[in-house]
């Protein structure tokens, strides 16, 4: 999904400082301090996790840290709300399966 560059009311949306992070091992770019979820969305990633019972994909739903649907494993910690966690250089983001990494025993 695209970033908004020029907005009729908000004006020019200044680009942030570019940082690098990985999602499931792939190196991606985003703006420092923006929510991890925003950076993922710009990179075309919508599935943040698969649920434990029905193995269904989930992504951003409320975008303000309430619904907890967008949680992922960030720097090894599961259940991190990516919609309110700021992106930092070198972050390691992984798709969450249930409450674990893919293939990990629950």
């Amino acid at each position, binding site marked *: 999904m695209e970033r908004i560059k020029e907005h009729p009311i908000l004006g020019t949306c200044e680009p942030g400082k570019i940082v690098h992070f990985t999602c499931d091992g792939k190196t991606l770019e985003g703006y420092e301090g923006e929510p991890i979820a925003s950076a993922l969305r710009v990179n075309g990633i919508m599935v943040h996790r698969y*649920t*434990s*019972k*029905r193995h*269904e994909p*989930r992504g951003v*739903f*409320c975008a303000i*840290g*309430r*619904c*907890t*649907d967008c*949680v992922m494993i960030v720097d090894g910690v599961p*259940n991190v*709300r990516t919609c309110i966690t700021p992106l930092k250089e070198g972050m390691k983001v992984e798709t969450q399966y249930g409450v674990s990494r893919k293939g990990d025993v629950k």
Partner: protein
Amino acid sequence: MIDINAKLKEIGPYIPEEDDDLLVCRCEEVTKGEIRKAIHSGLFTIEELRRFLRCGMGLCQGQTCGLLTRRLIAKELGTSVHEIDVATSRAPMRPVLMDEASRDHKGE
């Protein structure tokens, strides 16, 4: 005090509906059918349903499904949603790591 047996008789047995596999609680993945079945087995309050099915007990603590569940109970019992109590509120109000919840600020 509600007479459970009388109420069960009044609302009739659980009859499957076409969309019973629809999720109500997104966090704990509890379906409409599971909740309906539980209601028809005599669990008429959100508190009982939470303990029995874990709906509303996940990470978001029922923020999304609370009202949906109350509406479902009201519909099955043939009453208004205003008659169905909301869930008890308890701390912590937001998901917090056990480690953090037990780490008190030591002061300046």
